[in-house]
């Protein structure tokens, strides 16, 4: 019989594992530390939504140019990173829902009042995403010394947007407008706490509000950290986008930075709009969907239920915001701001409230389903 080799066949399929494979198998270690759990369950699975809660607690995580990255390996068994991450299931802590005298709907969560509002500050109106309620309330709270500084998300300076500490009206206005990419704003909170800042206000997405609630239950200093925050303004959110893959794609389509403004007009528009120095451009939402953060599909909170005040858009009324007042603090702040002529308020049309509840309910359902699939 002519041998396989002489017939031109290599015998590689019979030689088994390579030299390096054998060595590697001998060295394989089992990773079991706290950070390992976070990396295995969240980061390596691509589920991180870049809320930034773990960034800045230690040197092992960085947020850089739109991405949260594990920089080196920590060896501790326990750690605050796994305790605070909103993507880690935590049946063990009862995340404290609100006080008694509230409405508590399964769709929108606990609240005292839902209204619509808009800013009366011209400069803010010009730069804000919709009604400018967020920027106005933060500016107002700074002015009244309710908060001393605010953790906001900037527009990004050469790199992706990121968290920042705002101390003045111009800082706040500089941050007005929505960046639809996940931007790890909570890193700035951790940095601010490190430098001893107190009486902080914070604006963030629902995942970020949830992380703040977990923070109270976290490690040795969670309570202290949570106490340094006095005001939490949450933004409505359906999903956030991944900065790096999105912009790699948009650049390929000829988009030139810097980005001046973005918008996702309510259905049925189905487009993602971006304004650069070249003017406005529209991209079909379906082209953008691939860049939605994978972890966002697990999220069941559209209206930022863990905040004092939640703010979103209103379908069809561009210059106004939907505002959910959830806590006494939220309610009072809104009343004062209205009295002082900073914002004006009105009743939210029934139809809009119903739409909101429906959209919020749908997100919860989707999240529940996907959670079952992914986990």
């Amino acid at each position: 019989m002519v041998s396989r080799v002489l017939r031109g066949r290599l015998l590689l399929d019979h030689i088994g594992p390579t030299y390096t494979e054998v060595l590697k198998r001998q060295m394989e270690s089992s990773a079991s530390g706290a950070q390992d759990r976070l990396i295995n369950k969240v980061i390596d699975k691509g589920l991180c939504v870049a809320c930034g809660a773990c960034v800045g607690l230690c040197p092992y995580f960085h947020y850089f140019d739109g991405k949260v990255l594990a920089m080196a390996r920590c060896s501790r068994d326990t750690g605050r990173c796994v305790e605070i991450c909103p993507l880690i299931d935590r049946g063990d802590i009862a995340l404290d829902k609100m006080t008694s005298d509230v409405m508590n709907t399964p769709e929108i969560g606990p609240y005292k009042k839902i209204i619509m509002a808009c800013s009366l500050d011209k400069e803010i109106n010009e730069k804000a995403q919709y009604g400018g309620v967020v920027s106005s309330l933060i500016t107002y709270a700074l002015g009244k010394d309710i908060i001393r500084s605010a953790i906001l998300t900037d527009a990004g300076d050469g790199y992706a947007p990121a968290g920042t500490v705002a101390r003045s009206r111009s800082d706040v206005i500089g941050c007005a407008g929505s960046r639809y990419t996940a931007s790890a704003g909570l890193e700035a909170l951790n940095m601010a706490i490190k430098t001893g800042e107190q009486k902080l206000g914070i604006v963030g997405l629902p995942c970020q509000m949830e992380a703040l609630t977990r923070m109270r239950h976290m490690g040795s200093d969670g309570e202290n950290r949570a106490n340094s925050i006095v005001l939490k303004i949450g933004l409505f959110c359906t999903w956030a986008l991944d900065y790096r893959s999105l912009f790699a794609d948009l650049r390929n389509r000829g988009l030139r930075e810097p980005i001046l403004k973005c918008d996702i007009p309510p259905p049925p528009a189905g487009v993602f709009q971006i304004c650069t120095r070249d003017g406005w451009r529209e991209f079909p939402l379906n082209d953008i969907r691939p860049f939605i953060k994978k972890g966002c599909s697990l999220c069941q909170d559209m209206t930022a239920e863990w905040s004092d005040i939640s703010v979103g858009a209103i379908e069809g009324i561009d210059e106004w915001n939907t505002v959910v007042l959830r806590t006494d603090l939220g309610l009072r702040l809104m009343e004062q701001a209205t009295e002082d002529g900073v914002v004006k308020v009105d009743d939210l049309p029934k139809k809009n409230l119903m739409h909101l509840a429906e959209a919020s309910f749908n997100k919860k359902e989707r999240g529940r389903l996907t959670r079952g699939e992914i986990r």
Partner: protein
Amino acid sequence: MKGISQRSGDIHLLLQGNEAIARGALEAGVVFCAGYPGNPSSEIIETLAEAARDLPIYVEWSVNEKVAVEAATAASFTGCRAIVVMKQNGINVALDFLTNLTLSGTRAGLVLVTCDDPSGISSTNEEDARIFARIIDAPLLEPTTPQEALVMTTWAFELSEKIENIVMIRSVSRLSHTRTRVLINELPSFDPRPHFDTGLSFHTFPVVAKHKMRHEKLDLARVLFEKSSFNHYEGAVRPELLIVSSGCAWTYVTEAVDILELSDRVGTLKLGTTWPLPKGFLKKHLAKCDRVLFVEDVDPFLEDNVKSFGADICMEIGPKEYMGKASGHTPSCGEQTPASILRVLGRLFSVDWQDHAFMDKVSPIVKDIAPPREFGLCPGCPHRGSYYAIKTALAWDDRDGFVSGDIGCYTMGIWPTGFNQVKSVHAMGSGLGLASGYGKLDRFGFHQPVVTVCGDSTFFHAAIPALINAKFNGADVLLLILDNSATAMTGFQPHPGTGKTAMGTKTDPVDMEALCRSLKVDVEVADPYDMLSTAKIIYRNMQQKGPRVLILRRKCALVEGRERGFPYKMRVDQDLCLGEECGCDRYCLRIFRCPGLVWDKHAQKAKIDGVICVGCGICSDICPQRAILREERE
């Protein structure tokens, strides 16, 4: 004049093997000396450079080994004796020239010294350069002691002139760096009259005829080797075992034979002229007994050659039992030691030579007092900053990027001291050569970013062609030149960028930036001590296409320490330090790993080891608590 360059002879000096080789060359009247630094060879050129202050000789550090041999050969062609020195890796670089040179032949004595590094103590390999003597048909001499190294070197020039070809001398680390009493001889008068005789020509044509001449020259050497006193036999007339050995390994053999009291039972054949073999001499001794053991450093060079010769003459001397690397009697790699030979002989003669009681007593104690140590960059080393910046940039980038490494102190990037960033290291300049290949794989879907590092000296030595290749073929490469302004790994020899020659003469330094720019390659400069900014620059460069050069410039910490000293006195504020707590987990010690930072067991906090820390201050930037404080030194 005293020391190495003194003219008078008949006195003893305490000389290192490498110094003895240098003196041997001087005693032969060498006037042209060239080499490229590399452990364990560097001291030969350094010694000659020192002698050049007193003697009318010329010494240079060449840009690489090939150019070194070429430059030295020019001297030989014009009638001046010349020596060229390198480590084993260098022979590879010079080989292309050497294989042609031995066809063309030489004129005045030309000697090539290779210092091999068995066990690769400070090398990327433990190559045995003797094999090249066979490849290029050059006579090979192997000294055993500094004294013999001196005499052999002088004689090598005579031999080279007699056969009109280059002669190789092979030293090894132990010999090069051993210091013994050496008897020196008088120096000749140095009166070179270089002239290229245009009646002669040096080339390889006609090739076959020149090849034949090359063999005839070897035969001529062989005749001289038969009577050479570098070869000798010691031991019984009819020994039970004949040990054939060369170089340092022979000294271990004699030691082992003494310790085991086997001098009546074994014979030792020391060969100093190992290529071509002195066949008549060998035959006489091979006939003495039926069992032959080979002991030599690294490859079975003698072993294979003698066995092959033994086969040729087996009808005359009869069958033999040959023992050595092939039979497994001696280790097939690594350096020989007296112990390795004691082990073989002990087994062959059933002698238990170990003092077990003593071993049992000592080994547990030694285990305690000798903690395990890893290779480490010096405190204050700019490469630590460079690798930290690289590691940070690669992690930020998160596309599974890696570093293609090169030869120098920064090779340690393969270990934790360089954060295990370097994933391949081969020859001088190969990091960039590889990178120019990775940089063309994008068409097949390869998108991992590759950063390549290369020292300043390595850049001049062999990286320039690779950079031109990247430019020529439009490869996406990011070259980081780790410019510490010294050939630090081998002992601070000057190089083309330092503005000083081997003899201390000032020269116009070669401007790396201008060189790169002349290729229209983008060049930036950053400070490796400013790790975060440097990381950002690296990150930015990683997002770009085409060949790019980033020079990370900071003086070698040892040079800086000698010249100006460092600015800071460092201190850890232990109230701020988190130690093992969440938020740190000994980041400075576990991850950053500068040896200046140590663990205070009592306080369970980090502290500065004031003896080791040089005060560069860069660790202050990586502490999450800012607990490592820089205080200005008065």
